[in-house]
């Protein structure tokens, strides 16, 4: 499913919806966005700032923000948290050495007041690689089951070939629609 198809599923006709995509460097955030936009994903370079995809149809707008994940950029993440409707946290499932680091960064984000109650989709990316670990193992590493103050889910995916992205994005849109109707 592309971003335009997602836009059509949104119920919030009179409002901008904002999805924030974060994660460590090389986790595949930009590739996720490019794959959703139907673009070539064979040449993706490290993001040195942000990439915004803005989709507009009539009065409906969907903005997806991908912020660079390098260590020097991460302190700036908090500048982009305002009015977030859903957080997508991307993990390189093959980078087991940095599971602790990505877990610590996610914990910091979930403690932010501006993200209070914001639905969280964790994408266990790079499942196509032989050395990747399963979503269940990542869930344990990140102690996701201890999250009780927001809707969350973890989904396996491969941004490189698009596998699993539709499933995750449909969950995100459902959460945004429910939030718009007075849910969490």
């Amino acid at each position: 499913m592309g971003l335009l198809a997602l836009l059509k599923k949104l119920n919030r006709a009179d409002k901008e919806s904002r999805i924030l995509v974060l994660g460590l460097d090389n986790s595949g955030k930009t590739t996720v966005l490019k794959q959703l936009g139907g673009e070539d994903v064979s040449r993706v370079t490290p993001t040195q700032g942000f990439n915004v995809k803005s989709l507009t149809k009539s009065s409906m707008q969907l903005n997806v923000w991908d912020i660079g994940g390098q260590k020097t950029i991460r302190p700036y993440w908090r500048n982009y948290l305002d009015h977030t409707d859903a957080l997508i946290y991307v993990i390189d499932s093959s980078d087991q050495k940095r599971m602790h680091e990505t877990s610590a960064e996610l914990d910091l984000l979930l403690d932010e007041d501006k993200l209070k109650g914001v639905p969280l989709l964790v994408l266990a990316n790079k499942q196509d690689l032989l050395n990747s670990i399963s979503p269940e193992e990542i869930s344990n590493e990140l102690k996701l089951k201890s999250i009780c103050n927001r809707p969350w889910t973890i989904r396996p995916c491969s941004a490189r070939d698009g596998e699993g992205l539709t499933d995750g994005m449909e969950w995100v849109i459902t959460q945004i629609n429910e939030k718009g109707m007075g849910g969490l």
Partner: protein
Amino acid sequence: MVDVAIQHATQRLNDSCITIPDETVIEITDLILRNADTGQFLWKSLYKSDGHQVATRPINDFNIVQRVLVDDVASRPSFEIATDRKKSICLEEWAFRFGFVMPKSVNSWQSVVVSAETKDGDGKRETIDSLKGVDFVIDTLFYDGKTFLSKTCFRFRYVES
């Protein structure tokens, strides 16, 4: 077959009047047009080149056009498209607020706009024939709050191949 010939023009202000983080430069590095239905590449600007560029398909043949703006450090861009500046006809205008921009960063903004229906379907989309010989201008204006920072202008013209 109709081709698109593009004459490229830019205009920049002196950076010394800009009160945003040090060594900030406002510069659009690429403007890309793509058919968002298929991802098919239509046209890419050559920011630092002179002369005309030719694309192989008229842009408004497509239902959805995706614009990709890549820039170095920017704030509050406002796009404007006008067919004829002397008559000040503005076809489309839309703004986007970036908010905070990291110093010395390179950022991109991709805007996907679903076009109007064709006139056959009671829509407002212009036909290729009505656009021949008309200059199109895409103006990109950058603001920091209410302070005007810079403006970049891309000029298009549809021509017979």
